[in-house]
């Protein structure tokens, strides 16, 4: 095993024209962790993953994978990384058998036993054309190609965004099984927070190209609290704790805080919060994140 973190970004930035897709992004993904990269569409998640595999070049800062620069030393990085791009592009007219053969030809480290076993477990016929598969099955085939490379780092860009809840669970189960068997590191981006709390052990929240929050999920859950109390100014609390979100009614004030130490005035009722509440608080309730899944339904 390598002692370097699986992924490390330092003041990383990427600009398209005058628009920063990613800016001042600093984070570490320890080897063996399963990290969720969360944020609304356009937050910079895809940009970060593309930088990690050297598909694009940073405008500022640096990124390294297992201690190597993906663009300067692609041979030290690419064989160790599996990447499943958003909407998992596969040749639609190929059969599953042909798709696996293609994978074998393109990847020197291809483990055909892994690929064949997964196809068997999925109950798919090798003669079936990729274009005729359901969304969930296509995602599973894309994952199979990535896993047969025996990667030490698996990058998944919005792998479950288009899947129904059952297919989503089955896909994540396939990822976790591979983690159990090989101890690989996983970074998966998602704008859907459901399932992440049980699947991932670390969280990165990205919004507007900036990292908003980075840390182990368990610690983040322990640090964040929802305070409710009579209407008041948040300033007193803000002197001690980090106030992430505040809302007021005529009589009541509600604050979501990141606790600095553990002392509150007795006028506050203190509640625990789940991961989804934390994510929404950082993204702001009016941001695109809350609406990301809604437009199709609203338009009808």
């Amino acid at each position, binding site marked *: 095993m390598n002692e370097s973190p699986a992924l490390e970004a330092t003041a990383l930035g990427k600009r398209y024209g005058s628009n920063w897709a990613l800016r001042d992004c600093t984070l570490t993904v320890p080897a063996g962790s*399963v990290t969720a990269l969360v944020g609304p569409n356009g937050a910079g998640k895809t940009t970060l993953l593309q930088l990690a595999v050297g598909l694009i070049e940073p405008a500022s800062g640096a990124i390294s994978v297992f201690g190597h620069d993906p663009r300067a030393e692609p041979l030290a990085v690419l064989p160790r990384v599996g990447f499943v791009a958003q909407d998992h592009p596969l040749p639609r007219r190929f059969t599953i058998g042909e798709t696996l053969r293609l994978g074998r030809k393109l990847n020197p480290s291809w483990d055909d036993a892994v690929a064949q076993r997964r196809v068997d477990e999925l109950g798919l016929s090798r003669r079936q054309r990729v274009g005729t598969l359901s969304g969930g099955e296509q995602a599973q085939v894309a994952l199979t190609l990535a896993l047969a490379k025996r990667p030490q780092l698996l990058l998944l860009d919005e792998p479950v965004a288009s899947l129904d809840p059952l297919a989503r669970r089955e896909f994540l189960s396939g990822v976790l099984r591979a983690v159990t068997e090989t101890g690989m590191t996983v970074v998966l981006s998602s704008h859907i927070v459901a399932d992440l709390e049980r699947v991932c052990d670390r969280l990165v929240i990205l919004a507007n190209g900036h990292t908003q929050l980075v840390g182990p999920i368990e610690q983040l859950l322990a640090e964040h609290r929802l305070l409710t109390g009579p209407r008041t100014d948040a300033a007193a609390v803000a002197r001690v704790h980090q106030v992430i979100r505040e809302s007021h009614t005529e009589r009541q004030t509600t604050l979501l805080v990141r606790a600095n130490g553990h002392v509150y005035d007795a006028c506050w009722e203190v509640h625990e919060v789940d991961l989804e509440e934390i994510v929404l608080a950082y993204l702001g309730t009016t941001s695109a994140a809350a609406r990301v899944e809604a437009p199709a339904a609203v338009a009808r």
Partner: protein
Amino acid sequence: MIEFHLETRSGVPTYLQLVQQVRQAVRLGILHRGDQLPTVKEVVEQLTINPNTVLRAYRELDLEGLVEGRRGVGTFIASAQPPVPPNDVKTLRSSLQRWIDRARTAGLDDENMAALFADTLRPPTISRVA
């Protein structure tokens, strides 16, 4: 063998839920010394949870001495804690009943009492100052 379940909105960390379920099963006599716990792989597949979480729970139980991991074989119940003697339960229950009567007199309803009990039992990481 036991089957784990998760309460996703309980606010109790996942690894701790697993730990508590094993402790509870031993306490209730569902698991005995020598019984095997599900393998990490089985738990991961059944609950779709991170293997590190299961490992963490089993490590914690191992440190407590409640289970022992045998390399390449699995994790087994090492010691059955003696169940609480029934007489002690009786005494505790009656003193709790006296407390409940006092609390009712003081104007607390069931919900207030439950909240106060839970709060005292498991102080949140955040304590309040008067």
